């Protein structure tokens, strides 16, 4: 019963709870049972809120018993990446500099989850300030991959992906600046969507690269992803970069989810995808075969500027980060050094003590790129490359409904394997970064396994604000394959 409950989709669970067949309290207790069992090994959470979660679950159960209306995620236990502000618990960004930081406000997405009657069970581990591809940059704890505990869960939303795969919640929110939802989803065999830039409010998302950051769901099925999008998508007056719904309406992403896209045209970028490991390429080929069998036409497109995506990304993202992270200075909140002689030392020592190595590296890179005399050569040039990449996508989408490529060139790598080689680590984002630079939505869905039984993800990219079609295309694959049903051995 316990594991049957834990393996339910959000939608099944929500329907069961709403119909009174299942108690949210039971589901929540089951989740905390799983946390007790797996968390000591997996380490997905920075904090959990058992008392608070059970109280919310009971409240939802009582509402349902009383026949009162409930929200779209009524009683469903979910997790939130610890980069989103909550008035309960701490909001650490997995950084020692914010280790004891209590936010005075909730992120808009958190408010939306609460309004939808979701049960927030905890906040998940991540690379510090979302900078990394393995969650090894967390300043607070280690998270391992539920499929192989000697391997990384991916990053930066590694805790969210590991918690969802490890049945320690039914769905989670992650954030994606260069692949931080899709790559861990792919490494952990779950679904991860980075929505269009501007689709989901960033208010309360602790900023890394503001023009790239986007919050999105990590789930065990495309349908759950659609359900989560129904809750979190939409214009927020508190976020000027969230998009006016008059221009780009939010729709009910579940409504037509099971309708296949007619005359689907899929584009691939063969020379670009060729850089991936052989099992990854093979899985992509098999996935394309599935779509072919479903009647899709596969075409090849040329996107010549994708090769420059990593270079452009590591300038734009780090430049913005160097400015966004300037506020963590020990003056107003967060870690303050105990050894300052004057106020300049309050800054330099608090930051030296509070930030980890990778965060410092990116602040240095970004500061350099924005410095007088270098701005034109780096930042301005990166913006031009970004425009060319947008152009590549615009050109491609004139010819197709979506582009498909790998999520990551490899499957989950060993803990410690790349941590001392930042450039190799950066290259693992090669397939995910362009969606952030172009602002388009992209999803990762399970599409196979390598010889070590490690999951492989298929990445599908769609035009801006076409999340409805993107989800339908992903759903076509999911309803004709079983990859998403496989469970990590640890939870079997």
């Amino acid at each position, binding site marked *: 019963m316990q594991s049957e409950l834990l393996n339910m989709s959000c939608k099944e669970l929500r329907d069961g709870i709403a119909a009174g067949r299942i108690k949210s309290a039971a589901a929540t207790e089951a989740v905390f049972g799983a946390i007790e069992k797996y968390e000591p090994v997996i380490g997905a959470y920075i904090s959990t809120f058992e008392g608070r979660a059970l109280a919310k679950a009971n409240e939802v159960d009582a509402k349902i018993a009383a026949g009162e209306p409930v929200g779209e995620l009524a009683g469903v236990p979910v997790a939130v990446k610890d980069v989103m502000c909550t008035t309960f618990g701490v909001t650490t960004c997995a950084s020692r500099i914010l280790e004891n930081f209590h936010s005075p406000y909730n992120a808009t997405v958190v408010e939306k989850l609460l309004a939808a009657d979701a049960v927030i069970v905890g906040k998940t581990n991540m690379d510090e300030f979302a900078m990394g591809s393995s969650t090894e940059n967390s300043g607070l704890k280690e998270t391992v991959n539920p499929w192989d505990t000697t391997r990384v869960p991916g990053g930066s939303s590694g805790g969210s992906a590991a918690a969802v795969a490890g049945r320690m919640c039914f769905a989670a929110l992650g954030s994606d600046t260069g692949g931080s939802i899709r790559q861990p989803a792919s490494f952990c065999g779950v679904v991860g969507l980075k929505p269009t830039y501007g689709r989901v409010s960033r208010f309360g998302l602790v900023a890394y690269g503001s023009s790239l950051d986007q919050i999105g769901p990590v789930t065990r099925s495309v349908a759950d992803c659609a359900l989560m999008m129904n809750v979190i998508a939409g214009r927020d007056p508190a976020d000027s970069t969230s998009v006016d719904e008059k221009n780009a309406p939010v729709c009910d992403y579940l409504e037509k989810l099971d309708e296949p896209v007619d005359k689907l045209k899929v584009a691939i970028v063969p020379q670009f995808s060729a850089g991936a490991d052989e099992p990854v390429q093979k899985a992509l080929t098999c996935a394309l075969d599935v779509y072919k069998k479903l009647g899709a036409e596969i075409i090849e497109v040329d996107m010549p500027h994708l090769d420059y995506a990593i270079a452009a990304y590591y300038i734009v993202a780090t430049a913005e980060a*160097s400015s966004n992270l*300037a506020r963590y200075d020990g003056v107003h909140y967060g870690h303050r050094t105990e050894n300052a002689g004057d106020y300049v030392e309050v800054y330099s020592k608090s930051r030296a003590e509070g930030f980890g190595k990778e965060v410092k590296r990116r602040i240095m890179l970004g500061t350099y790129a924005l410095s007088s005399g270098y701005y034109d050569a780096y930042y301005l040039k990166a913006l031009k490359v970004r425009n060319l990449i947008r152009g590549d996508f615009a050109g491609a989408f004139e010819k197709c409904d979506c582009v498909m490529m790998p999520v990551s060139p490899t499957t989950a790598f060993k803990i410690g394997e790349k941590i001392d080689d930042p450039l190799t680590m950066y290259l693992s984002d090669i397939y995910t970064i362009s969606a952030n630079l172009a602002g388009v939505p992209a999803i990762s869905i399970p599409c196979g396994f390598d010889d070590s039984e490690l999951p492989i993800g298929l990445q599908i990219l769609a035009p801006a604000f076409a999340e409805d079609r993107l989800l339908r295309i992903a759903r076509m694959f999911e309803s004709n394959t079983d990859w998403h049903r496989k469970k990590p051995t640890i939870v079997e």
Partner: protein
Amino acid sequence: MGELRYRVVVGLEIHVQLCTKSKMFCGCALSFGEEANSRVCPVCLGMPGVLPVMNEQALEYAVLVALALDCKIAEFTKWDRKSYYYPDLPKNYQISQYDLPLGSGGFIEIPLEAGRTKRIGIIRAHLEEDAGKNLHTAGNFSQVDLNRAGTPLLEIVTEPDMSSAAEVRTLAVELQRMVRYLGVSEADMQKGHMRFEPNINLIITKDGVEYKTPIVEVKNLNSFRVLERSVDVEEQRQLDEFLETGEVMGMGNKTTRGWDDINQVTVLQREKEEAPDYRYFPDPDLVPVEFKCEWLEDIRSRLCELPIKRQIRFVDEYKLSDYDAGVLTAERSTAEFFERVVAAGGKPKRVCNLLTQVGLKLANEKGCSVAELDITPKDFAQVSNDVDGGILSASGANKAIELKAQDPDKPFSVIYEENNLIQKSDVGELEQIVEQVIVDNPKAVEDVTSGGKKSKKAQSFLLGQVMQKTKGQANPKVVSEILDRKLG
């Protein structure tokens, strides 16, 4: 030593605090004097995860000033981050406008002596957010009050078109008058609503060769007096320094100095070599602003006649002195009220006297504008005409206005009557009194009739005697005529 001549060259940066309902990028109310850190929210505190949302009203106010300064309004503008670390700056960057200011290439007319004006170029006008305040009140630590953080500031940068400290002050005063006219700032100097940073250097001609001294920016001056004084002091200091060292303007940035009010000197703050790198880049949290024609026209329609133009017109149209016109146009409401009184039939010069001598005094006492005194333009026009018609003396008119302000419902006829304000102009009645005075004061009469240097004084004395006998109610003009006739 050969001939040496020099002139001072000054450009000005001015920060004007706009009187919007809320801060530049959040919903907090603007603050002055409230308990420290009581007007703050996560956004202006720069908490993790917050995002700014632009205040439309601030943008409107800023564009209104830019239009009044005859600036070209950018079709497209954006927000930039200016990075520097300081405890009063919670995000450690300030949201400002760097390479695309909302207004550029304008000018402002400033009044010079004798009704002449001078045009000072405006390089740019842009919006930004203010920082908080560091308080150094306690022992070995400082405190930060962020009530002011995020307050909308309009920064205006002039061309180096001013050539004296007096001109710099005049521009500052003119700008204050302008922003008050437009209703976009209280421009209260005591509350720090206007802050000035003059950029000063000298052009020296020595032995037929021209030298330019290095540019000095004096930071953060918040009164007209200190602004003017600092330019004078800096002028002398730069001259002395040039004579001593011969240093001239070089490449690179300017030196900044602060003002030491106790010693009345400028003090070195930062050498030019230490110029900070602000690492400006477009703020990704805010969307660029496009000015639509319709919107701009709507703002343009809110422009009013500017104070300097109005002052000149008052001199031309109403034949007022430049000084009087200046007083009447100092506040928009006063100028508009003046014109309403004139429209109601008052003679301009007389109305001007009434308003400047008693109207403004009363308004000042009550802390309101002249228009809010409960005395209508028609009332003022009536009193003004009663003076011109000889019914009231000038002082009687002032008295009548004062009484009217105390009791607005009482008609003037009653006020005049109850307070014996109506002048005696009846020639027959006054002749008798004059004759009596002539009889009583033979010595003065003799002084008048014999002419000479005592004559004028003696005639005034006789007039005074008549006024005394009539308890001040005699029309002095009529009395003088009678005296002239009788003693002439």
